[in-house]
């Protein structure tokens, strides 16, 4: 029996040592996984954005872009995120929606700005989308729903129009799975508190706006799981943090952003 135990430990130990040693090697680099993924993200992000640009109205209001940039910069700066990588786009559409595309494209609909009552609420949604970007949720979702081989095919061919349309639709009008959404919500709370933005208005925004509201077309809320439940756990996480909120935009800048929402 002792001999068997000794041999078992030796076999299991050899396997564990071999696994440990091999896992120290940069296989991702050897197989160029990161390079391929980065190239894929970049191309798909570009193709998706070109599609949105062609089919929807893009705002060229410099004040609105500057105000949104200020919110993004504050969150990025206080959370060690390189804001230069974020490509902000403002689309004129009355849907309450914001979403991330591959390669750090952040798309915000004017309807979202219209629906938010203060900069903290808007910052909460932006923080949530930044969390999706930082955690690679965008590409994970695409790999899960479209498949890696299809994504690489789109990257290496000039066309793929229908597939790009499907990807754009998937990213703009469907949520990530519940686990990823919760992860993004909680990370958004951390982003906000680090950036001296009160997360409670973001929680209230989720709790008060639901699909029964008739004023707005609530894509972002309809596609995301149970807004009230999300509002509850965001408040619970926020309670554990102590912050001294510092305003990002002046009252007049925020009012200008809201009042010129149709641009």
């Amino acid at each position, binding site marked *: 029996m002792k*001999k*068997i135990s000794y*041999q078992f430990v030796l*076999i299991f130990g050899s*396997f564990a040592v071999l696994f440990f040693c*091999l*896992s120290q090697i940069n*296989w*991702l680099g050897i197989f160029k996984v990161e390079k391929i993924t980065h190239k894929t993200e970049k191309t798909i992000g570009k193709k998706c954005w070109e599609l949105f640009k062609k089919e929807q109205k893009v705002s060229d209001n410099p004040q609105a872009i500057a105000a949104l940039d200020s919110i993004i910069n504050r969150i990025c700066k206080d959370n060690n995120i390189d804001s230069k990588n974020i490509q902000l786009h403002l689309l004129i559409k009355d849907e309450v929606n914001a979403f991330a595309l591959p390669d750090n494209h952040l798309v915000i609909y004017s309807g979202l700005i219209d629906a938010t009552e203060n900069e903290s609420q808007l910052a909460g949604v932006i923080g949530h989308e930044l969390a999706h970007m930082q955690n690679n949720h965008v590409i*994970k979702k695409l790999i899960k729903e479209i498949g890696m081989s299809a994504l690489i095919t789109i990257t290496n061919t000039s066309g793929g129009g229908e597939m790009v349309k499907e990807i754009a639709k998937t990213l703009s009008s469907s949520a990530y799975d519940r686990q990823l959404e919760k992860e993004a919500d909680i990370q958004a709370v951390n982003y906000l508190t680090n950036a001296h933005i009160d997360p409670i208005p973001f929680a209230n925004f989720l709790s008060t706006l639901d699909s029964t509201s008739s004023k707005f077309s609530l894509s972002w809320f309809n596609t995301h799981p149970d807004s009230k439940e999300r509002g509850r756990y965001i408040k619970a996480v926020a309670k554990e943090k102590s912050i001294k909120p510092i305003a990002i935009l002046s009252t007049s800048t925020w009012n200008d952003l809201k009042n010129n929402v149709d641009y």
Partner: protein
Amino acid sequence: MKNKTAFAYTPTDFETEKASNSYLMSLLALIAGLPLPIINLIATLIFFLLHKRSTYFIKWHCTQALLSQLSVFVINTIGFWWTISIVFGTPTLSNAYFAYIICMFLFNLIELAGTIYTAIETRKGNHIEWWFYGPLTHLICKP
């Protein structure tokens, strides 16, 4: 890893053929059942159950073949579900994943070579006891 030892008695030609087949069965099932790791285990288990009341030599080798498949089954199952979770779930490709797949491949290769060698030697009437699995089989399988 494998020792050629003397068995309690000299097996007949029929016994060596059946014992050799228990190893070949796992090989065929492994090839047919890829990438599902359970197929080879089920095949070896069925062969084992069919020869449960056979002679000691056949029973002994069926047991060793089955036990050796158990560890491959565990290793391959982890690899299989890790791959599935990457394709359909949230984890991404990592250095640890590649390291595991290489380990799994090497382990399977050793197992495959060992199985082929044992099948050939057993058919010749030689009694092969695997390292770890041999003593374990002696514990389970009594004359």
